[in-house]
């Protein structure tokens, strides 16, 4: 019990730092209890036994904003919130919101000012007892945004959260909650910057999306996890009748990461589209699952995963489509392709189809793992293009469509710069 008591102090420290209402503290305490009681999870292809569950200490006062991050946010002309080590540094609002009843604020403020909305939806999609790290997230979440778009409001510009992690003695626990009411249309961007960490702390990042009937939500992300910590990332959307949720997820990392990107296609005609861009280097271990759960009738989904791995990176890319009994007329496609740039890199592409319904409209998967096609390299070289450039062009070519799908120009530039940095080393 000593462990639980010690770190339960951390729960109180986080809660009081954000001056949260009592009901949030109760949620956190309950989550902490579950976190400590839950057994060690066992994952296929990812060994968690040596990772530990150290959470570190909560940093009460953040340091400054790194120059590169300052430069990035200064170029944003849409609403954004900037967090350093979980603390809100600044929020920029534009005319895009407010007047239409859109709420865009940090999650802690939201628990005070928008209590009923937050109470209704917080942990409703990524639930406290999903697994050990979902409990951990709810116990210690610090930073993250609450975005609410009312019925029939369409916003053209994206909303963005930028997280910077500088503290070496702490895990990281951002938590975003996005609620799109009926017929709403919204784009959200989630960006992280993180340094190398010497200690093996555990982190748990959560984004949950509630997409009500007829709404459209597109989430674009750019993660950059450095080696040291263990990162659990859970991104899940509950997709209502005729609603559409798109994820365009990019990760350029050399960390130890376990990530889930999932759409629960609950309503009739719900649609999910997930694109993943994964570039691993160093001794990265990435275990990423893109999942579609078809519960509603005539639900549709597409998964496209593209990975490029350098050095000793080792990645497991799973795409999983589940069609439950009763989800008649569902359709789903998976396309996974991994390129190992260096001989020492390793990748697994695992397509999974779990189908309990006989009446399926379409269901297909294609997965490949390999090196760059030497005939393509030869072809480009035969026109005078040097080998190194030819190789880069081919890799860019294959990431191109997914990079283009990222929902803002600064985000695309950031992701391109991160990938370029790793490909040209």
């Amino acid at each position, binding site marked *: 019990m000593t462990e639980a008591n010690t770190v339960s102090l951390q729960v109180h420290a986080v809660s009081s730092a954000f001056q949260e209402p009592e009901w949030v503290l109760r949620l956190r305490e309950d989550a902490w209890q579950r976190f400590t009681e839950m057994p060690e999870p066992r994952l296929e292809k990812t060994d968690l036994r040596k990772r530990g569950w150290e959470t570190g200490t909560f940093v009460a006062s953040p340091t400054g904003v790194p120059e590169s991050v300052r430069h990035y946010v200064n170029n944003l002309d849409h609403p954004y919130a900037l967090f350093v080590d979980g603390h809100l540094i600044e929020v920029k609002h534009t005319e895009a919101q407010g007047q239409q009843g859109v709420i865009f604020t940090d999650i802690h403020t939201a628990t005070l000012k928008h209590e009923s909305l937050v109470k209704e939806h917080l942990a409703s999609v990524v639930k406290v007892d999903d697994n050990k790290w979902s409990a951990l997230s709810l116990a210690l979440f610090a930073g993250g945004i609450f975005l609410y778009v009312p019925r029939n409001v369409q916003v053209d510009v994206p909303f963005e959260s930028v997280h910077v992690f500088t503290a070496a003695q702490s895990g990281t626990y951002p938590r975003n909650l996005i609620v799109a009411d009926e017929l709403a249309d919204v784009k959200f961007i989630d960006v992280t910057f993180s340094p190398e960490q010497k200690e093996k702390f555990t982190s748990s990042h959560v984004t949950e999306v509630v997409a009500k009937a007829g709404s459209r939500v597109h989430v674009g992300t750019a993660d950059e996890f450095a080696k040291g910590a263990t990162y659990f990332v859970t991104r899940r959307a509950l997709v209502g009748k005729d609603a559409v949720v798109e994820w365009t997820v990019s990760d350029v990392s050399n960390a130890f990461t376990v990530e889930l990107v999932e759409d629960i296609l609950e309503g009739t005609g719900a649609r999910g589209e997930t694109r993943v861009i994964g570039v691993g280097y160093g001794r990265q271990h990435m275990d990423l699952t893109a999942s579609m759960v078809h519960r509603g009738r005539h639900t549709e989904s597409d998964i496209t995963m593209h990975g490029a791995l350098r050095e000793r990176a080792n990645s497991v890319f799973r795409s999983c489509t589940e069609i439950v009994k009763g989800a008649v007329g569902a359709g789903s496609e998976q396309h996974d392709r991994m390129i190992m740039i260096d001989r020492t890199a390793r990748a697994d592409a695992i397509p999974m189809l779990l189908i309990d319904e006989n009446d399926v409209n379409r269901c297909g998967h294609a997965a490949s793992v390999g090196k760059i096609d030497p005939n393509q390299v030869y072809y480009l*070289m035969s*026109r005078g293009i040097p080998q190194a450039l030819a190789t880069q062009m081919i890799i860019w070519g*294959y990431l191109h469509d997914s990079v283009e799908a990222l929902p803002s120009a600064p985000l695309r530039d950031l992701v391109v710069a991160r990938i370029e940095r790793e490909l040209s080393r």
Partner: protein
Amino acid sequence: MAKPNFQVEDLHVSIEGKEILKGLNLHIRGGEIHAIMGPNGTGKSTLASSLMGHPHYEVTGGRVTLDGQDLLEMSTDERARAGLFLAMQYPSEVPGVSNANFIRQALNARMEEGKEIPVLKFHRTLQEKMKQLNIDPVFAERYLNEGFSGGEKKRNEILQMSMLEPRIAILDEIDSGLDIDALKVVANGVNSMKSDNIGFLIITHYQRLLNYIVPDYVHVMMQGRIVKSGDAKLAEELEAKGYDWLKEELGIEDETVEVDA
């Protein structure tokens, strides 16, 4: 600039230890069009690929020079920058890389840094050449060869050739799979480039293409070497009589050296 001068002397090439080319000689100067004909499996495509430096082919003997430079010492991209071009029989598809971007990178690879071709000028030239070759302007932004028909791929090879202005151009079965209209377009593209600054090596199975591109020299390949050379009349003779009379004349029973075409 002096006329291109391309020499192949006693070239021997193997694939996985099996010798395919067994002492091939060829001399092409600027302004000349050479055709290499021959039945399937006699080493024609091996010649094209090994001259370009495909990693699958091992040169075991001989010399290849362009303007006095030793091509065999060069990597594939260096050969291209030295002025060699190969229009391939089966060009690769490269998703995500647009045709225009590909050709621009290829052109810029030839320029010194900072002297790259201006973007507007490039696109104007590209569109002009595409028009000449009857290529829909949207193909500039299509991904390289992805989803192109056979004929579109061949025209795209000719487009690249006319943009890159090589000194020696090898066309490997550029006529295969083309209907007569596409064949004429390809032939016009080649004929419009003809000058003292470029020499052509046209590898073909059929004489048909040579009705539209009239060669100065015709060589027949069998058993991995050139067994007979002549002028355009030789091609007509082959078309009329087939290859068997030549095999008989030369005392060749099996003309092939490889299993693949």
